[in-house]
């Protein structure tokens, strides 16, 4: 209990701390960038899997669904190998930079967004298909129409991706290295403080992390609600 009290205390104190501010901003920058990239890739990919019929489609759907549960440390390891000096992309010198963390998180959540979007768009397609084909929409045009028409539900999908990204520690730890003032984010800071035995500080960081996630979800939800009411 005293830990918890101390945690709130340090959360308050750290709220004013410049170091902490940097950590929070980097966490948001990395995870929001990753979610944006993953959405740009995952949403059209999911919609395409819902709309197009081609041989091997079912196998891809199963693979994408399975990749929803990719272990972050494994993704981190693979990205580490790709970006390390000896790896194929070593020349870019990206390892232990925020860019590497964004890449790892984007790889982690793109399948999640694609798989959830595929399910959602497929249900919509069942309702829309005949009407859209009757109006002369090909599968390509239908894909964008469905993404636009499903925008409110798809925002929830993107938020799920953000939730996984911001909470993830294994991948960013491996490819970022948890370097103070460079690649330290909230989750890696929590892991570090816990292993150092500073539980109060770790818990304080945890509280801020949860509050942030809550705030972003609440904001998105409210915007969604207002738009949905306006547009039906």
């Amino acid at each position, binding site marked *: 209990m005293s830990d918890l009290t101390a945690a709130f205390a340090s959360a308050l104190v750290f709220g004013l701390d410049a170091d902490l501010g940097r950590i929070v901003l980097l966490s948001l920058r990395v995870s929001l960038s990753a979610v944006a990239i993953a959405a740009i890739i995952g949403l059209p990919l999911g919609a395409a899997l819902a709309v197009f019929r081609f041989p091997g489609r079912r196998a891809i759907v199963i693979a994408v669904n399975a990749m929803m549960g990719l272990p972050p440390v494994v993704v981190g390891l693979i990205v580490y190998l790709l970006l390390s000096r000896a790896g194929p992309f070593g020349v870019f010198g990206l390892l232990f930079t925020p860019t590497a963390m964004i890449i790892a998180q984007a790889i982690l959540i793109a399948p999640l967004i694609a798989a959830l979007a595929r399910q959602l768009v497929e249900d919509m397609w069942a309702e829309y298909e005949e009407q859209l084909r009757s109006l002369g929409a090909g599968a390509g045009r239908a894909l964008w129409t469905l993404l636009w028409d499903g925008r409110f539900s798809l925002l929830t999908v993107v938020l799920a991706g953000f939730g996984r990204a911001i909470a993830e520690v294994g991948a960013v730890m491996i490819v970022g290295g948890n370097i103070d003032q460079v690649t330290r984010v909230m989750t890696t800071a929590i892991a570090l403080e816990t292993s150092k035995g500073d539980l109060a500080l770790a818990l304080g960081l945890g509280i801020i992390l949860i509050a942030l996630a809550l705030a972003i979800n609440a904001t998105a939800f409210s915007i969604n609600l207002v738009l949905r009411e306006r*547009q039906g």
Partner: protein
Amino acid sequence: MSRILPLRLERVGYAAGGKTLVHDLDVMFEEGPRTVILGPNGAGKSLTLRLCHGLIQPTTGRIVWQGAASASAQRRQAMVFQRPVMLRRSVAANVDYALALAGVAAAERRARIADALEQTRLADLADRPARVLSIGEQQRLALARVWALQVEIVFLDEPTASLDPGATRAVEAIVNAMDAAGTKIVMTTHDLGQARRMADEILFLHQGRLIERAPVDEFFARPRTREAQAFVRGELLPI
């Protein structure tokens, strides 16, 4: 304007799952009379419309558009479904979407949208989200889409099956206005009253076969086949 009619079905059949659902349809749809395809549920009425409209391909036979513009036939026909499908955007934007797909220039679209919403008495609702409309209003919007497209032939698949009498009357009035404006009407129903009100000629389908075709007065006064006689008397037919 070049035409795509008449539409001819040559020995059209459709099978799915090992069952033949439509048998050897030989029909010609010509300009003019409002054609009502009548029959009990499961007679193959909806399938016939979908075959004509090209949503499904016949497993045997051919569907041939005859007129000078038959190459662009897909753009000169439209279909109204039993349950209207509305996009999640405004009433006007739903019509606009259809026109954009049909390749109508932006400048012309606005005038066509206004006209179509006027004809379907939806002008006051133009900016409302289409999905919050009542089901009757949604079906009128589906008709507005067709109106704006200025097609030559429209297929209507039980357009009033989920509507109350007031909304049904409104839809029937719009369909008649389309007919008056020169659009060929091909409509399915299992409702005898609607068939009497809306048909100039009846195609009677039973068990996937066309078993009778006649002008509406003749069909109801002197149905020739046993099945049609029973159906007109209001008896249940075996499916």
